[in-house]
C-alpha cells in the first residue's frame, strides 16, 4: 500500500455532523483501494509520483487576509459569487446579493434541516466513488462545499461563479473542494467553476468533486476553468446525471501542472437528454495534464457532441481518454467525439485514446483523433507576407483553439480567457485586441 493511502487511513475530517456518514463511506472504499500504477489502465500514462513524494495530507489550508480579487475577477461578468481561499470560505470576496426565491446557494456548513436532507440524498448520487479513487479521497476529506439548488421552472437570472483560490503556505497542504448542483425540472442555470491561485509557486494539492444533477428538462451551462500557477497539483472530476430532455453544455480548460487530472463522467439517464462537452488543454514546460471523459448512454434518443483540443509545448505531456459507452437499451443514440492535438516541440508527447463501446445497433457513433504539428503550408503563407515565424506560430496555435474559445456562450468568459491564453503563447495584449477585432 502506498504511503499516501496509509496516511489517508489515519485522517479524520471535521465539518457538520451529518457529513460523518459520508466520510465513513469514503474511508470504507479506500480501505480496500489499490494505489494506481502504470499497469492501471486509467492511469497508464499519468504518474502519481508528485503525490507520493510530497506530503500534502499533513496540513489543511488556511485563509489569508489580502486583496485577492485580481486573481479571479472577470470583467463585465455579473454573477452570484462564492470565493474559497485555500478551502476556507471568504465572505468579503463573495457576493450573494439578490438571489431570487426558490434558489438556494449555500455552504454545507450552513445547511438547514431541509437542505441537509437534500444533501444527504443527492451527495454521491452521481459519482461512483468506488470506481474513482480520488472521488473517494475527496469524500473522506470534505469538510465544506457548495450546494446550489434551483427550484422548478426557475431560470436563474445571473450566472453562479465559484472560485477556488489557493496561495502558497509554509508547508505543503491539501484542499478538498466539493460542489453539488440540483437543478429541478425545467430550471436553467449558468455555472462557472474557477480554479485559480496567486502568482507565486504553489505547494498545494487540491482535489475536487463536482456533481451536476439535472432533472427533467433542466438546462445547465457549465464552465470548469483551471488557471492555477503551474506548480499546483490537482486531481478532480465532474460527474453529471441528465434526466429526460435535459441539456448540459460543459466547457473545460486546463493549463498543465506537475499532476493535473480531470475526470468527466456524463450519464444520460433519461431519454432525449443532450450533452455538449468541449475542452482545451495546454500543458507546457515539464507539465502534464490528463482529461478522462466518459459518456454513459443508458437510455434511448440521447445525443452527445464532444470536442477536445490540445496544444502541447516544450517537454510537456498530455493525455486524453474519451470513452463513449452505449448500453443495450440506448437505441437511436447519436454520439460524436473529436480530439485534435498539436505538438509544438520535439520533446512534447501526447497519448490519446478515443474509445467506443457499443451494445445497441440502431446508433450512429463516430470518433476521430489526430496528432500533428503546425501546418507547414499555413506557416509558409504567413512567412510570405512578412510575418515572423514566431508570430505566425503563435497565431496558428491560437487559431487552433480559438474556435472553441470563441463559441462560448458567455462573451465575458471569452474576453477573460483570450488574454490569459495569448499570455500563455507568449504575446503582448496588443495581439489580443487584434484577434478580437478580427472576429
Amino acid at each position, binding site marked *: 500500500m502506498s504511503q499516501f493511502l496509509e496516511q489517508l487511513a489515519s485522517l479524520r475530517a471535521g465539518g457538520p455532523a451529518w457529513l460523518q456518514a459520508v466520510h465513513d463511506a469514503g474511508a470504507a472504499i479506500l480501505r480496500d483501494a489499490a494505489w494506481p500504477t502504470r499497469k492501471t*489502465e486509467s492511469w497508464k*500514462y499519468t504518474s502519481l509520483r508528485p503525490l507520493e513524494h510530497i506530503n500534502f495530507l499533513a496540513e489543511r489550508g488556511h485563509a489569508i487576509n489580502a486583496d485577492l480579487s485580481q486573481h479571479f475577477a472577470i470583467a463585465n461578468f455579473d454573477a452570484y459569487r462564492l470565493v474559497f481561499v485555500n478551502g476556507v470560505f471568504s465572505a468579503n470576496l463573495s457576493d450573494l446579493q439578490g438571489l431570487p426565491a426558490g434558489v438556494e446557494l449555500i455552504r454545507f456548513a450552513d445547511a438547514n434541516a431541509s437542505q441537509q436532507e437534500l444533501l444527504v440524498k443527492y451527495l454521491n448520487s452521481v459519482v461512483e466513488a468506488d470506481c474513482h479513487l480520488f472521488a473517494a479521497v475527496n469524500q473522506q476529506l470534505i469538510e465544506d462545499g457548495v450546494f446550489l439548488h434551483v427550484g422548478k421552472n426557475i431560470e436563474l437570472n445571473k450566472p453562479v461563479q465559484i472560485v477556488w483560490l489557493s496561495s502558497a503556505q509554509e508547508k505543503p497542504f491539501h484542499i478538498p473542494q466539493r460542489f453539488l448542483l440540483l437543478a429541478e425540472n425545467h430550471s436553467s442555470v449558468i455555472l462557472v467553476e474557477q480554479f485559480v491561485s496567486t502568482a507565486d509557486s504553489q505547494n498545494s494539492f487540491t482535489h475536487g468533486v463536482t456533481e451536476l444533477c439535472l432533472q427533467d428538462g433542466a438546462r445547465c451551462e457549465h464552465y470548469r476553468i483551471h488557471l492555477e500557477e503551474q506548480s499546483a497539483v490537482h486531481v478532480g472530476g465532474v460527474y453529471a446525471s441528465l434526466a429526460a430532455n435535459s441539456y448540459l453544455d460543459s466547457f473545460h480548460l486546463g493549463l498543465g501542472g506537475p499532476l493535473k487530472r480531470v475526470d468527466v463522467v456524463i450519464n444520460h439517464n433519461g431519454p432525449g437528454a443532450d450533452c455538449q462537452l468541449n475542452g482545451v488543454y495546454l500543458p507546457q514546460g515539464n507539465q502534464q495534464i490528463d482529461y478522462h471523459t466518459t459518456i454513459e448512454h443508458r437510455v434511448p434518443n440521447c445525443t452527445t457532441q464532444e470536442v477536445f483540443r490540445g496544444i502541447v509545448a516544450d517537454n510537456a505531456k498530455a493525455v486524453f481518454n474519451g470513452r463513449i459507452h452505449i448500453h*443495450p437499451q440506448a*437505441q437511436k443514440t447519436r454520439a460524436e467525439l473529436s480530439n485534435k*492535438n498539436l*505538438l*509544438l*516541440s*520535439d*520533446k*512534447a*508527447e*501526447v*497519448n*490519446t*485514446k*478515443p*474509445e*467506443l*463501446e*457499443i*451494445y*445497441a*445497433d*440502431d*446508433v*450512429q*457513433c*463516430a*470518433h*476521430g*483523433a*489526430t*496528432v*500533428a*504539428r503546425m501546418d507547414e503550408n499555413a506557416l509558409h503563407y504567413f512567412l510570405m507576407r512578412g510575418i515572423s515565424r514566431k508570430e505566425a506560430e503563435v497565431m496558428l496555435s491560437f487559431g487552433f483553439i480559438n474556435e472553441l474559445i470563441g463559441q462560448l456562450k458567455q462573451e465575458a468568459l471569452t474576453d477573460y480567457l483570450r488574454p490569459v491564453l495569448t499570455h500563455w503563447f507568449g504575446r503582448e495584449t496588443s495581439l489580443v485586441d487584434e484577434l478580437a477585432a478580427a472576429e
Partner: protein
Amino acid sequence: MSQEQIDSLIRKEYSAGFVTQIESDTLPPGLDEDVIRFISAKKDEPEWMLEWRLKAYRTWREMTEPTWAHVSYPKIDFDQISYYSAPKSLADKPKSLDEVDPQLLETYKKLGIPLHEQEMLAGVAVDAVFDSVSVATTFREKLKDAGVIFCPISEAIREYPELVQKYLGSVVPQKDNYYAALNSAVFSDGSFVYIPKGVRCPMELSTYFRINESKTGQFERTLIIADEGSQVSYLEGCTAPMRDENQLHAAVVELVALDNAYIKYSTVQNWYPGDAQGKGGIYNFVTKRAVAHTNARVSWTQVETGSAVTWKYPSCVLKGDNSVGEFYSVALTNNFQQADTGTKMIHIGKNTRSTIVSKGISAGKSSNAYRGLVRMNPGASGARNYTQCDSLLIGDQCAAHTFPYIESKNPSAVIEHEATTSKVSDDQLFLCQQRGISAEKAVSMIVNGFCKEVFKELPMEFAVEAGKLLEVSLEGSVG
C-alpha cells in the same frame, strides 16, 4: 425483416463441420519439462532447440494469463491439453501428393480446398499442416530453383540451423506474452520461408491449417525471412471440424523484412466458432508481428470469420527509415463469438508510414472489438499514420467496440484516426428489396461493399474463398 426470418437465418449451421477419422499419435494431456523433451526428441531437434524450448517453458511458468482483452471465457486448464499430436501415417512420409493419405485429401476436398488441383490451377505451393505435422509439401522443386526455402519449421531447424537460430524469437521474444511463451515451449510445427536477396518468389506460398484431434492444442510457429530486396506473398487459411470441446490455438508468426523487402501476409480464418448456443469453438490467441527494415514493406490482410474467442493483433515494427506497414482486416462475429483484434504500428524509423483499415461486423449476440496501438517514437520524424475503423452492427444484441491507443512523441509525425459505428440502414435494405433483391442477398451485398477496401487487398486466389466464407457466415446473421 421479421424476427422469425432473422432467427431462421441465424440458425444456419457451420458448413465445414465434420471429423476425419485418422489415428493420431497423441500425447496424454499435461505439460512439464518431459513433455517438451518428448516433443523435441520426436522431431530430432538439436540440443540448442531443446534448451530454447525449456527456457521458454520456465519463463511461461512465471507468467500469468492476460486479462485485459474485452473477452470472457472459462479459465483454461493447461493440464487438460495435449501438447503433441501427429497423424499415424507420418512414418512413411509422402514425397508427393499421390502418397498422401487419401482420407486426408478427402478432408481437404470436403472443405473445398483443391490441394492437387492447385498445382495446375494457381501455381500455389501448399505446405499443408494437418494437426501438428506437415504431411504434404508441393512445388518444392520449383521453389528450390529460385533459391526459396519453403519447408516445415521442424525441417528448417535441422537443415538451416543458422537461419533459424538467428531469427527465431527475434521478432516475438519468448517472454513477449503468456501465449507466445507457451508457444515457444511447445510449438509443434509450422512453416519456414526464406527468400534470398533480390528474389521475387515465383509463386504465392500457402498453408492450410486444420485442427483435427479433439482436445489438442495447435501451436503453430511460422517464420518468414525476406532478405534484402526480395518479395513474397504468403497465404494462410484455416478451417476446423465441429467440436463441442473448446480448443486452444496459440500460434506465433514472425516476419522479418530486411532492407527493401516486401512481405504480404494474408489470412482467411474460419475455425469452428461454436454452435448457436455458444458451446464449443476454438480459442484463437495468436501473436503475429513483423519487423520492417529500411525501405521494407509489410502488409497484413486478414479475414476473420471463425473462432469462439479471438485475441489477435498482427503488428508491424517499422524499424528502418521509410519502411511501410499496412493492416487490412475484416472481422466478422456471430452468435456468441468474441473477437478482440486489431494491430500495432510502432514507428521507430524516419518517414515510416502505416495504414490501418479495419472493418468489424458483429451479429447475433457476439462482441467485436478493435484494439489498436499507433506509437510514434521520438526518432520517427516525418512518420505518417492513417487509421480507419468502421463497425457494422446486425441485430440489437451484438456489441462493437473501438479501443485505439495513440501515442506520439514526435511533432513532425502525423496521426489520423477515425472510427464510425452504424447498422445496415433500413433505407438501403428497402431500396434493394424494392428491386426484388431478397433481404439476405441485400445485406450480403451491403456487407460486401462495406468490406471492399479490405477484399481488394487479398490475393486473387484468396478473394474468392474470403467472399465465400463471409457469405456463409453472414447467411446466418442477417437482420
